[in-house]
């Protein structure tokens, strides 16, 4: 595990660089108000959905799988939540249960297709993305239903001046870290991702572990959908795709030092990756770069960041 120290160091170095660039731009453009602690906090607050999704994505990447259906699952979850709630606070609980059940089901199917049918995870989850989006677009074509005021507390509520959503993301990260670090199921994830053959010989069922990782990932994506429904006050069938949560969550996980080949990394790195991404985004904003140019730069930065990491591994890319 000697490499682990290096992979935890690099994200922190990148974070420092991103922070320095952000500060430089803020000072150079004479906008020191962006440098307050409150502002940095709200900056992270804008990346909650990405953060929740990326924590889930970390699990599947750790078992050397990948999930490209998260963006579409987020849309499904958000629309389903606001459709079922329909502004009625008493329907909050069944709506959340239904959304999480759908998430678990999607993850179960993804996991079984990948582990049992041995379908390439990219194709399996891309196929799932098509299926989810098709079903959603066939049933809804605009904002559907509404979220009751009390549910908006998830996105807008504060406890002692700290946003509830931020506390939730930190709590989720701590829980995921504890799960990976201290439970047998968590260490199985590393074993299967690191060397599936050896794990099999050690008596670990790769199928179960892969399915579990996919279920956790989809549950996180469904939760991100709930958060977005709470923030937007209603769900629309395009919000997941518009946020490019599939590619961004993968990029953030990789920037956080988790190997795409599986077996190495963790959720704290992912959280650092999320911070780096929100800093880059905010730098663009205060530098006044327009939305389209931002999209171009974002594509370039994602590829460059992944290239930077892969440069250190000797494996052949596919």
């Amino acid at each position, binding site marked *: 595990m000697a490499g682990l120290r290096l992979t935890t160091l690099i994200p922190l170095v990148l974070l420092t660089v991103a922070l320095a660039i952000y500060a430089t731009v803020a000072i150079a453009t004479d906008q020191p108000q962006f440098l307050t602690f409150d502002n940095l906090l709200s900056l992270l607050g804008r990346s909650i959905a990405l953060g929740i999704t990326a924590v889930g994505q970390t699990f599947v990447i750790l078992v050397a799988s*990948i999930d490209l259906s998260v963006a579409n699952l987020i849309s499904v979850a958000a629309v389903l939540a606001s459709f079922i709630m329909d502004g009625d606070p008493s329907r909050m609980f069944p709506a959340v249960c239904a959304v999480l059940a759908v998430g678990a089901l999607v993850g179960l199917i993804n996991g079984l*297709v990948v582990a049992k*049918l*041995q*379908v*390439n995870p*990219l*194709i*399996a989850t*891309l*196929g*799932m*993305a*098509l*299926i989810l*989006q*098709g*079903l*959603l*677009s*066939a049933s809804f074509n605009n904002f559907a239903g509404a979220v009751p005021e009390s549910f908006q507390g998830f996105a807008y509520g504060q406890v002692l001046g700290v946003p509830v959503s931020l506390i939730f993301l930190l709590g989720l990260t701590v829980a995921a870290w504890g799960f990976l670090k201290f439970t047998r199921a968590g260490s199985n994830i590393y074993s299967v991702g690191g060397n599936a053959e050896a794990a099999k010989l050690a008596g670990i069922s790769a199928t179960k572990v892969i399915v579990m990782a996919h279920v956790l990932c989809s549950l996180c994506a469904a939760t991100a959908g709930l958060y977005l429904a709470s923030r937007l006050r209603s769900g629309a069938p395009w919000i997941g795709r518009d946020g*490019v949560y599939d*590619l961004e969550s*993968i*990029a953030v996980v*990789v920037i956080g030092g988790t190997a*795409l080949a599986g077996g190495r990394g963790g959720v704290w790195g992912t959280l650092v990756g999320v911070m780096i991404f929100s800093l880059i985004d905010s730098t663009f904003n205060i530098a006044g770069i*327009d*939305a*389209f*140019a*931002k*999209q*171009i*730069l*974002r*594509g*370039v930065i*994602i*590829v460059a960041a*992944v*290239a930077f990491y*892969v*440069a250190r*591994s000797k*494996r*052949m*890319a*596919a």
Partner: protein
Amino acid sequence: MSAPAETPGRDTPRGGLLTRLGRVNPVFWLLIALLGIIVILSPNFLEPFGYMNFLRRAAPIAILAAGQVFVLTSGGFDLSQGAVVTLTVIGSSILLGANPDATAFVIAAMLAAGVTVGVVNGLVVAKLKVPSIIATLGMMITLGGIALTWSGGAPRGYLPDTFRFFGRFMFKDVPLVTILPVAVLVMIAVCAALWWIMHRTNFGKLLHAVGDNPRSALLAGVPVTKVRVGAFVLSSVSAVIAGILLGGFAGVSTDVGIGMELQAITAAVIGGARLLGGHGAVGASVAGALVLQALFTVLNMLGLPKPLRDVVQGLILISAVAVATWRRRRSGED
């Protein structure tokens, strides 16, 4: 959807004609079956206007699939094809808005842009070792941003008839077939050229070697980087050509190319292309594209709402790969 599994596989008992029929790629049987269903549902399909129109509409996916299979064979994915299609349509309309006589020049410029995209994709994958899925998804986002910036968010250009000739024009009173769309001619020419490159040149052999085992190919002296870049260039250029045809079909918009890369991958996979490389055929991929188009036609005839096509496509994509994996495992165990 399990049709490929029901047709006889590689391990059919020996016996003259039957063995040879069994060796035919199942995608061709599937295509014949689907075309049969279309004819039953709508006998007009047998008229030249019926099948020529079908081929014309299938042309862009067929060309994309024939290009995509090169990248699949090399062991990667090209998810930027759809964005290249969009960029071609939007870029052409902007460049031609001022001067409709420049069609030849604009097409040359778009092809050059396609080559550039392919070279960048190839170098990022082969030199920087970025997984192709990330590299080409990043390219997709970047090209989408370029298309939006260039058009100012709302494309308002139009495409002159000189440009739309390729997608729209049909030769009339042609012997045997009565009408002959230019798009079908373009499809035949491009797919034949790609077939020749894949199955009759040294490059095609090297491509299979790289996809099968990149390390041993490298050790055997194969110029792996050049071969990979070549595969991505062919894929992007085929996307430009598909974009030119689609520009003739429909109007100018930022979403013409959305999802086309997945259709191309699905078509190639239905045609038996092996993911992660080493095995791919241009003819079978084109047949896969025709299967997909035929399936969409059938679903349309049955009155299925358009978004549900995506659902069917997703199911087919997963099933095709699952069946291929299952067959390979079974034949490996035998």
